[in-house]
């Protein structure tokens, strides 16, 4: 139904241009998360491998007429729409950049009218499973949720910025609003449906092209089409269902692309930076889940991971196939890729009452063996002897013992960091508790206070972005971020070590129950308070992983491992990784050596010793370890990489080049190998070869600083002045501001609880006043 209102007599009257699509407005309170309960139009799929249906001449003619009408109407409406919208649109960054600071592009010229996008209800007629999942998922609620609105409204109301700057955020959170020209003062665009549906079906399913992995909605949005003609030309707008059902292959060609199955598709929005056009400052990396995945074991693109895994994309974890429970013509053999995108967000389904989504989110967080929590070892009474691995070794405990517990938390099976993306808003932390047999609490870190706030001394996986005055950037006012004073996470495939110290009571008898948990809350309490005021319900806290050990006062023997426990060699390995990241190199080498004792033929065991000693600058012993690794496996890319670095130290350039080339051959998308090989060539003045490597590196990571830096010099040497200048400008924009540490230090100076946490080696302890601990306690 065409719905078009305009006023020649009243040129500034509200315009509602919707094009051909019928409307029914939606809000959470009114919506049914099934598009409709009526059965979809009848459809019998053709047998697998059967050729497409052959149209009669009348059907061909009818389709051509429909196509001609659709093209004409689409063009006319778009032109009319642009004539009305463009004159009052704020082209803050110039007419060629209507959507900056976002990276969104649209097909053709000008804005796309909202009515060009078929509604989710239209799609949901046949795709009822997809619709019901999408309606409860984050994508459909990407704009309207209060958690987003509270933040973006601040930017819109900011007197130095305003709604034009919100194009940065809404390019991903509400791209139809951006593409429709809705993000301008005195907007003439009806927002009710756009805002309710956020990333609707035809947002993702109208993407024509991905730009480089710059993020910030780096993609081209097409004029939506749900079908193509027999030649593959897109027919804009909605078409009768029988046309789609007669040629599902044409429907698929219009709405599906190979790139939609790749992580690069997700990267368009799950990678973000804060450009100078937003903050009037410089490029600041916001988050990059995509790069974290690319560096993880699941991408199989990075030879330097500590562990290996089968190839897995974002979609494999977040859109797994399962049996469809509602009519779903997109299902294959009854299985359908989930449109719930289960991940960590419990806040949205909690707020909207989407009980099924909430339940499945919690199940997802708990089900995947994503983390391993290991109460790895103890030290007693300041004795430096490590009792470990707990469970595999005998030891004794006595009343009044001062105990140091080493808890190793491994990011075992997440394809990105814990937590990814906006750690300033999310809240994950370690809760560590010690109690006796009667449940009497002996020590507790990471508790929630009565007001819901987290124990400020908890070990939490969070960050602290700060302004240029060292103030914490609360409320996600990202345009004010100048530095990150603190950033704690567990990168994919790595581990962290958290130390706790407590004293056993003098009168304790029986056993001591020691528990370590990793808890997660979406979002942190102070942000929830900012959104709702303090009188909001308690938001869910999910225990993702935990481990309890029962330790006897007196003698303790070895006990069988639990089902989720890692084998001992991996427990030592994870300790080594954590110690390496805490720059405790001697201890890390000792830990990795324990791995070798248990697995003498484990190549990575030797490589891990070697790479630690390289960080430690003990190159002689590093060579011994790497040499041993290569003797076990001469083609091992990981060992070859570190050997390349060692050959460089020795000045053996040919060996160095040979090593890095072998790594690049095995892992052509290894950014580290490309970078080092490029450096080697650069140092040898093999400019052409160096350029090749840095250009390849830039394709892998468009923001790599070494690529910008070296290419600016290499291009200049080659007489390519403009390209050199571009690379130089990007380097200057993206390199860290030399003043950034000052802003961070200004923050840390007045926040001792975080300052202590930011020291890699720190202890959580109740014994501060007794001189037995360092700065923590209730």
């Amino acid at each position: 139904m065409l719905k078009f209102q305009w006023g020649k007599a009243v040129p500034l009257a509200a315009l509602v241009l919707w094009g051909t699509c019928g409307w029914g407005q939606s809000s959470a309170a009114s919506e049914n998360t099934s598009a409709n309960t009526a059965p979809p139009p009848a459809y019998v799929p053709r047998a697998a491998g059967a050729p497409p249906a052959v149209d009669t001449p009348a059907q061909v003619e009818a389709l051509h007429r429909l196509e001609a009408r659709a093209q004409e109407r689409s063009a006319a409406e778009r032109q009319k729409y642009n004539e009305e919208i463009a004159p009052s649109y704020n082209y803050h960054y110039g007419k060629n950049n209507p959507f900056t600071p976002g990276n969104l592009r649209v097909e053709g010229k000008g804005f796309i009218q909202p009515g060009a996008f078929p509604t989710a209800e239209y799609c949901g007629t046949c795709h009822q499973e997809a619709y019901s999942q999408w309606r409860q998922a984050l994508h459909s609620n990407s704009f309207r949720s209060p958690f987003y609105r509270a933040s973006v409204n601040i930017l819109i109301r900011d007197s130095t910025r305003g709604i034009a700057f919100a194009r940065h955020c809404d390019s991903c959170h509400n791209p139809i609003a951006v593409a429709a020209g809705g993000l301008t003062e005195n907007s003439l665009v009806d927002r009710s449906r756009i805002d309710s549906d956020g990333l609707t079906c035809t947002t993702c399913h109208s993407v024509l092209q991905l730009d480089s992995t710059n993020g910030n909605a780096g993609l081209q949005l097409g004029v939506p089409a749900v079908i193509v003609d027999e030649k593959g030309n897109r027919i804009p707008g909605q078409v009768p269902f029988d046309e789609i059902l007669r040629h599902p292959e044409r429907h698929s060609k219009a709405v599906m692309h190979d790139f939609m199955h790749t992580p690069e598709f997700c990267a368009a929005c799950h990678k973000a930076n804060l450009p100078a056009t937003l903050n009037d400052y410089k490029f600041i990396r916001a988050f990059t889940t995509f790069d974290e995945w690319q560096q993880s074991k699941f991408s199989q693109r990075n030879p330097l991971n500590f562990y290996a895994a089968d190839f897995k994309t974002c979609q494999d974890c977040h859109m797994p196939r399962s049996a469809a429970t509602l009519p779903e013509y997109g299902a294959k053999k009854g299985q359908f890729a989930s449109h719930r995108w289960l991940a960590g967000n419990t806040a949205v389904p909690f707020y909207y009452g989407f009980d099924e989504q909430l339940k499945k989110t919690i199940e997802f967080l708990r089900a995947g063996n994503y983390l391993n929590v290991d109460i790895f070892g103890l030290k007693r009474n300041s004795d430096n002897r490590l009792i470990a691995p707990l469970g595999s070794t005998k030891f004794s405990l006595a009343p009044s013992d001062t105990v140091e517990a080493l808890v190793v938390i491994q990011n075992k099976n997440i394809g990105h960091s814990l937590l990814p993306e906006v750690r300033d808003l999310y809240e994950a932390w370690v809760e560590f508790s010690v109690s006796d047999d009667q449940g009497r609490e002996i020590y507790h870190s990471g508790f929630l206070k009565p007001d819901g706030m987290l124990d400020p001394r908890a070990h939490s996986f969070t960050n602290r972005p700060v302004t240029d005055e060292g103030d914490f950037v609360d409320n996600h006012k990202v345009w004010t971020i100048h530095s990150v004073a603190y950033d704690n996470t567990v990168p994919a495939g790595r581990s962290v070590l958290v130390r706790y110290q407590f004293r056993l009571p003098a009168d304790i008898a029986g056993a001591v129950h020691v528990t370590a948990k990793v808890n997660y809350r979406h979002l942190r309490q102070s942000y929830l308070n900012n959104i709702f005021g303090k009188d909001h319900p308690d938001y869910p806290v999910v225990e993702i992983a935990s481990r309890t050990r029962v330790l006897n006062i007196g003698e303790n023997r070895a006990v069988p491992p639990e089902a989720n426990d890692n084998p001992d060699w991996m427990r030592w390995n994870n300790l080594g990784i954590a110690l390496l990241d805490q720059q405790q190199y001697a201890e890390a080498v000792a830990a990795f050596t324990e791995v070798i004792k248990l697995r003498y033929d484990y190549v990575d065991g030797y490589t891990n010793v070697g790479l630690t000693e390289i960080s430690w600058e003990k190159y002689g012993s590093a060579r011994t370890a790497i040499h041993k690794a290569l003797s076990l496996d001469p083609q091992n890319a990981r060992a070859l990489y570190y050997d390349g670095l060692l050959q460089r130290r020795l000045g053996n350039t040919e060996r160095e080049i040979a090593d890095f080339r072998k790594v690049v051959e095995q892992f052509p998308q290894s950014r580290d190998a490309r970078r080092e090989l490029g450096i080697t060539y650069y140092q040898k003045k093999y400019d052409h070869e160096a350029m090749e490597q840095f250009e390849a590196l830039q394709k892998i990571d468009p923001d790599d600083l070494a690529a910008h830096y070296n290419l600016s010099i290499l291009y200049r040497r080659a007489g390519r002045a403009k390209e050199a200048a571009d690379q130089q400008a990007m380097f200057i924009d993206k390199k860290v501001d030399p003043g950034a540490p000052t802003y961070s230090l200004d923050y840390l100076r007045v926040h001792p609880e975080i300052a202590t946490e930011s020291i890699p080696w720190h202890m959580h302890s109740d014994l501060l006043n007794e001189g037995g601990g360092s700065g923590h306690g209730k």
Partner: protein
Amino acid sequence: MASNFRDWSRLFSTMQGVLAAVLLMSLTSAAHAANQCPWMNQATASGLLEGEANIEYSKSPAGQAGICTFIDREASLTRTLTIQVEVSPAAHQRVEELAHACGGQSEPVPAVGNEANLCSSTDRKGMREERIVGRVRDQVFSIVLGTSSKNDSARHADMLRMHLLSAAEQVSGSLF
């Protein structure tokens, strides 16, 4: 007589023209006042009213209510959307007061602001109305969607309610 008639006709035409111009100017003025509602733009209101809405917005002196009124007049039919927002130190109690003042039953509405209540439809002064009251933190809002005609086919109760909830989502979103 004929000349008198022609004179009157001419005068009447002139008056029509003047009236049209005045109307045009007033509508234009109203249109120039368009989009001054801080919680919803005119286009969105027009969409919810399924017509071309004109806006009247009165700003809020500190502590008093601010009110946006969108009116769509078509022939004998008048549809209105009224949004009223006030800041209250006892916002929850104020919402309860307003919900109670609806008369009849009110039902809580999830996922709108901090809290919201939908009032039962009323027939008042010939207008059929649906009302929702709620708050975002200490900002209390009251939204009324109404139609003057019982036979307004676009305005049966379910549709009225659906549009009202959509309006509430818009307003509460702006208030967050």
